[in-house]
């Protein structure tokens, strides 16, 4: 997910999923631009190889011309769409960001070749959870720090809603000079809601039962902050 900022710099960050290694980097610098992906990591690695070759040949011309982010985005679109047409897609959603001649560029390509350019883009569920926030709160003159805060806000929402995510993320800052990608860092999350304390209290078939007032009755569904109830755990008593 990415945001475009006022001082000719754009950035994004992505989750880092732990696997057998400490972390998997889903965002890489490509020439002076930056590419991030969701989906198949193996396909992402393949795409990185294609782009390596593209940037290499571009540099080999050594003629003062260079491929900008718009050109790379279009190249990726062609690749993805072509694979889709052969019923053998590269299973990724790609986000490409870059700055050239003072022009900021942020584009997205999906695995079926849908592509567009916008001030903020997201992949997967980010489109549903994060973009509404971005639509409300993004504006042309965001500073870098404000942009990071905005993205962290979005990422937190996504983190809470993803059962297999880890709270680590990376930020890429892209300016005319090039790309810097931060080290992975953790987001603080808050899980101390009352409903999360004893989430299965009173659920059908559970051992735990709530007592409200003076009679033992069938428990209502667990409510937040119901301080008048006490919990009796029948789990270890076999004579009930």
């Amino acid at each position, binding site marked *: 997910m990415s945001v475009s900022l006022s001082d000719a710099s754009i950035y994004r960050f992505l989750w880092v999923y732990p696997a057998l290694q400490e972390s998997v980097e889903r965002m890489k610098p490509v020439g002076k631009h930056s590419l991030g992906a969701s989906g198949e990591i193996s396909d992402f690695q393949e795409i990185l190889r294609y782009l390596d070759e593209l940037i290499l040949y571009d540099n080999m011309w050594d*003629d003062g011309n260079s491929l900008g982010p*718009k*050109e790379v985005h279009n190249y990726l679109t062609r690749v993805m769409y072509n694979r889709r047409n052969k019923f053998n897609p590269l299973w990724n959603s790609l986000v490409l960001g870059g700055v050239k001649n003072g022009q900021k560029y942020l584009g997205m390509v999906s695995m079926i070749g849908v592509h567009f350019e916008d001030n903020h883009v997201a992949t997967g569920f980010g489109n549903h959870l994060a973009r509404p926030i971005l639509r409300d709160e993004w504006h042309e003159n965001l500073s870098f720090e404000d942009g990071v805060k905005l993205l962290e806000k979005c990422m937190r929402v996504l983190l809470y809603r993803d059962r297999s995510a880890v709270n680590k993320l990376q930020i890429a800052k892209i300016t005319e000079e090039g790309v810097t990608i931060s080290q992975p860092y953790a987001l603080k999350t808050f899980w101390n809601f009352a409903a999360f304390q004893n989430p299965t209290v009173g659920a059908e078939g559970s051992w735990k039962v709530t007592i409200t007032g003076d009679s033992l009755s069938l428990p209502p569904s667990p409510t937040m902050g119901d301080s008048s109830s006490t919990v009796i755990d029948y789990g270890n008593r076999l004579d009930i």
Partner: protein
Amino acid sequence: MFRNQYDTDVTTWSPQGRLFQVEYAMEAVKQGSAAIGLRSKTHVVLASVNKAQSELSSHQKKIFKVDHHIGVAIAGLTADGRVLSRYMRSECINYSYTYESPLPVGRLVVQLADKAQVCTQRSWKRPYGVGLLVAGLDESGAHLYYNCPSGNYFEYQAFAIGSRSQAAKTYMERRFEGFVSSTREDLLKDALFALRETLQGEKLKSSICTVAVVGVGEEFHILDNETVQGLIDAFEIVGEETPAPEEAAPAADEPAAADQGAPADEGAAPMDI
């Protein structure tokens, strides 16, 4: 040039290190009717003299639009020129399709030059017999290149190719330092004047010449006859005296009949600049 025993094959060197077939191909360029190009910082102008086979036929097409930002003027074997223009158009449109961006002129020219070089190193091929003046605009500014049958290419501020092109070159040599800051109108004026030099007294009118422009904010396009005639009249080109007689042109500029070429061994081969 004279015939010699090393000029049968393109893949045969002469003892002096020359490939005569390639040089002969460059002769073919000199036989074609003149084409000139000049550029400023923001515009490039191409102009050519249109010869017709006879009064009954139409004029040869010598200027081709290759893309919105690139055009080419040819001199020599027009058939070869047409084929190379088609190649250039193909390269440009493929690049545009893949990158959504115009092909930088410098890269197109190198691809063209490499294509020409192949024909100088295959025994079953012959060199292209056409010289191309490529005019284009890209991120790095306005460009004018000349592509040779030898596979060489050069960038120019102003250049002329084809028969009697030396006259135009002389005219432009005196003025080219000012071209970089010329306005579009000045550039057009100089182009028409230079073109008139190659006509050697013949009257300049829009029916025998073609003019094309490309510039910042201006797509490559060929000016129509009325516009050109308007320019000719406005600049009063027809009415002016021809300037000082052209310098002694190398015999190679003369039409094929005059075989007064310098002996084959004299001087560096044209393509070895």
